[in-house]
């Protein structure tokens, strides 16, 4: 009894179902990965092309935001609605991001700009 590793047996229907599921997930992840690589390429080429910093900076920051959300939802499993306690997880993530945003805002406005 002790020190056993639990083994799970699946029926062939279950096996097929999981196989389909995994395939769909894999496709989605590859697509998202391609989008992220593309966004990174755009960011680098914007800098390389020598546009004005006033144009490049906001665009890069915007794309960075898109990357973060893509990362969270496609690779860190935040899109799985049925996952256990996903509501709590989502709430924690967004609360944390809100606090982080608040701190950055405060640093920018009251330390560096000195309003």
């Amino acid at each position, binding site marked *: *009894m*002790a*020190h*056993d*590793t639990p083994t799970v047996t699946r029926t062939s229907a279950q096996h097929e179902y999981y196989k389909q599921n995994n395939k769909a997930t894999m496709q989605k992840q590859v697509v998202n990965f391609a989008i992220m690589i593309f966004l990174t390429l755009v960011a680098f080429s914007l800098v390389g092309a020598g546009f004005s910093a006033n144009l490049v900076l906001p665009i890069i920051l915007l794309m960075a935001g898109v990357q973060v959300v893509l990362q969270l939802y496609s690779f860190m499993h935040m899109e799985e609605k049925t996952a*256990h*306690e996903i509501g*709590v997880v989502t709430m*924690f993530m967004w*609360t*944390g991001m809100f*606090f982080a945003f*608040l*701190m950055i805002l*405060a*640093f920018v*406005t*009251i*330390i560096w700009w*000195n*309003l």
Partner: protein
Amino acid sequence: MSSSVKKKGFGATVWDYLTTVDHKKIAVMYLLGGTLFFVIAGLEAVLMRIQLMYPENDFVSAGTFNQLLTMHGTTMLFLAAMPLLFAFMNMIVPLQIGARDVAFPFLNSLGFWLFFLGGLFLHLSFFMGGAPDAGWTSYASLSLYSPGHGVDFYVLGLQVSGAGTLISGINFLVTIINMRAPGMTFMRMPLFTWTTFVTSALILFGFPPLTAGLILLLFDRMFSAKFFDVMYGGNTIIWEHLFWIFGHPEVYILVLPAFGLFSEIIPTFSRKRLFGYSSMVFATILIGFLGFMVWAHHMFTVGLGPTANAIFAVATMAIAVPTGMKVFNWLLTVWGGSIKVTTPMLYALGFIPSFVAGGVTGIMQATAPLDYQLHDSYFIVAHFHYVIVGGIVLGLLGSTHFYWPLFFNRMLNETLGKITFWIFFIGFHMTFFLQHFLGLMGMPRRVFTYMPDQGWDLFNFISTIGAFLMSAGVILLVLNVIITAIKGEPAGNDPWGDTRTLEWAIPQPIPFYNFRQTPLVRGLDPYWIEKQEGNKEGMVYAEPLGDIHMPNNSIVPFVMSLGLFIASFGALYSPLGVADDSRTWAIPVLVIGLVITFGSMIYRSLKDDHGYYVTVAEIEALEEELYGKKGGNK
């Protein structure tokens, strides 16, 4: 497993505690470790009060006074109050939600050892050339220029013990989200579990800024970086922001569990369900949330500008609303109840007015223009001691009496407990009430002495007498513990008679696997419901009796923490350090320590440990040995 109740040799017991992953034993270790540091920090406070007893006293030197002051604050917050609260969280939360243990028993043990060895490292500074002396806030403009290794001890010690706290916080979050017994929805969780949950969230979001700040300070101090050095284009204000972004949530990390403990004590002895349960939950969450938006009220006089000061002043005042909700809910719980004034209830009743007094002075300081007058005066000292002693320490002492039978199956002496309360309570108000007026009369805080005849002499003298009374109270409590340990009778199940929540439904002494069958929760205050319906079994159970899966003990957490402890000595004597007395062995020791830590991490990752099963036969044998009957709950 029946051998666990037999007498063991001293070495075996020590080994058992070094390797244990049982939340109940870790709770006892937190209780012991926290008490040790509480007594040390209390002694430092008494030494400071003796120094301030008379004007121009020379009991301790100015330098020693600075060290005492820094270590008193740092130790009380990081190494006394938090571990003592963790002791209660560890003991009570898994039982209160009907879990077998916390979600990650290994991490629980790791959290404890990191805290303890970090604290030990910080205290070794007294014997190794002087303790930190830049205040518990360790503002960079001061701490960067502190000679000797004091501040290095502060940075490294807090880094190590802070990692332990963060680990424990995450552990409780996962435990509370995932391991509640069937039927225990979020809105049926006892208030102490709720406050532990919100506190853990605050730890999760609050400790990383401290870690970041400490890392920057560590690089400045030990490797000659210039993050906070204005002369090289650094910015010293950033430390203050990072510290208080952590520091303000920290005070809620401390006070929310105390609120939770009182929310357990008050309904029990008012023999009435908690008034406004859902508003209590809402208020707890709101306090936690707002706690992150007010940090700059510690820095009004830094010169942030009127806009920033106004925003933070208003945000700070907003916290009074949920806190007020809590106070009224406690009062309305007591109102109309059939009150039994036991020792824990006495602490709870003493807590309400004391804490409100501290809260009201907090609102006064939130008013930015007034804060310019109050800043760095004894008024601030009086305020935060009213909140911390009146809220947290009264909570800890009250809960010690309340939960002692759960920890050790013994009741602390009630008469002695009530005497302790009155001595401590009178001493507390005597010490700190007059400090409000000392502040208003202009006495600055953090001074090691003062000139006579400024009208401060008498109040300082009375304040010191109060500190002696508080010490007498703590000594009485320790005596009470010793007497109980020697002569105490087994308290048995539900010793208070009126308890409401799941932790009291478990038979005493508690078997190492907690409930042998996971209980079914049928509402708020589940044990009370079962008692009202005449359930002699204790609880209704959600599963048949089966084999129980338990984690194996492990020495790895201790070794992992020990590695960081050793590495800290290497970092301390780094050849690039500010303190200018590097040792040749510094870098090798740093490397050896880190190798031990990372080596044990790799060992832990590669070695599969699936725990073991306690079979039904073993459970029945153990329970027969513990309670002398076969079967029991069906």
